[in-house]
């Protein structure tokens, strides 16, 4: 069974996918000219989740103003331009990093938000039908292509990309399990019978 640190590693892959989806929904189009090939359903789910996430962020900020130091990231102001590669270092660091405080706090994420998150990510992690039979119609294929692009313009070698692909495999299983769980709860059946 995976530990919490591994969940963050797997979660990082998922978060990058979500930010890619957000960037592809944005109007005007991203400065690079690139966008993931999203369907109308993907876009509506992304909009729905984005709004729910914004409300959640606003609630967190209110808690912060009420005295909770959850989002007090003054300690990392010098590192405002932290790249994602540095994120794990922040987590490993014992100093008061903003995200680490958030991880340890008792923040309750609403079930509705988690469900909206699942509705957004599920189509990307499930098999996807395509009319053109082109692999580039699949947002996940495009996402992996973006993931493989290194900072120096090179493409990652097999040993570098194997871990993200393993994470995606885990995430696909997770999405299937969550979907099964949701369907079972919706049908009020008993999974053990």
């Amino acid at each position, binding site marked *: 069974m995976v530990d919490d640190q591994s969940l963050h590693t797997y979660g990082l892959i998922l978060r990058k996918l979500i930010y890619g989806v957000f960037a592809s929904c944005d109007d005007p189009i991203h400065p690079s000219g690139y966008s993931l090939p999203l369907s109308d359903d993907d876009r509506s789910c992304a909009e729905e989740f984005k709004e729910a996430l914004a409300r959640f962020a606003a609630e967190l900020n209110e808690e912060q103003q009420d005295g909770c130091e959850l989002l007090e990231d003054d300690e990392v102001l010098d590192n405002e331009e932290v790249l*994602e590669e540095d994120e794990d270092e922040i987590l490993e660091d014992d100093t008061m990093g903003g995200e680490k405080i958030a991880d340890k706090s008792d923040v309750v994420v609403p079930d509705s938000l988690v469900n909206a998150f699942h509705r957004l990510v599920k189509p990307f992690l499930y098999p996807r039908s395509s009319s053109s039979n082109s692999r580039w119609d699949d947002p996940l294929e495009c996402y992996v292509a973006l993931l493989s692009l290194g900072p120096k*313009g090179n493409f990652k070698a097999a040993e570098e990309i194997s871990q993200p692909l393993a994470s995606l495999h885990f995430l696909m299983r997770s999405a299937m399990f969550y979907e099964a769980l949701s369907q079972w709860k919706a049908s009020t059946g008993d999974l053990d019978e």
Partner: protein
Amino acid sequence: MHLLRLCWLVVVIAKALEGRQPSRMLSQQGIKGYKDANLLPITSPLFDLYLRKFEDKMEAALKQQVLPPRSENEISPLLRVMLWHEHLEPFLMDSQASSSSSSSSSESDDGSLPDDDRPMYSRGKVDSLRSVIALPRRLHERIPLRLVTFAYLSKVKREFKLCDPQIKRMLTEYPPT
């Protein structure tokens, strides 16, 4: 463009001598580093003069452009199957360089472009393309999604622990679609 070619020629020679990754060595040492370490096989005073005169320009060109993978040696077996470079190439090409080269280039007999006119990746476009899936730069903008993702995966982990082993097996072998 010519300067960049020369730069890469130097790198390839040094790589042949050292058997190390050229891009990594260049980023650490630069052209001058090669020369100081006596890694360059050419000791002509004229070559020294050439390096002194154009080193800065070569380094600057190297910072702005990247050679795309073209030859069999540059395209790994994985890349040959996945074709990531072909998919992303239109969004990586240096439009200024390609437009200037297209106006002056002439194709060789086999239809390939002359080596000096080979299109290049722009480092700016590489950064821009990578930013599509980049996390927000400010930490506090990342936290809400981080919490949601963690809650989602934690819920899966928690519920999966409670599941009967047979159900786990069933879900693994026959996932609902």
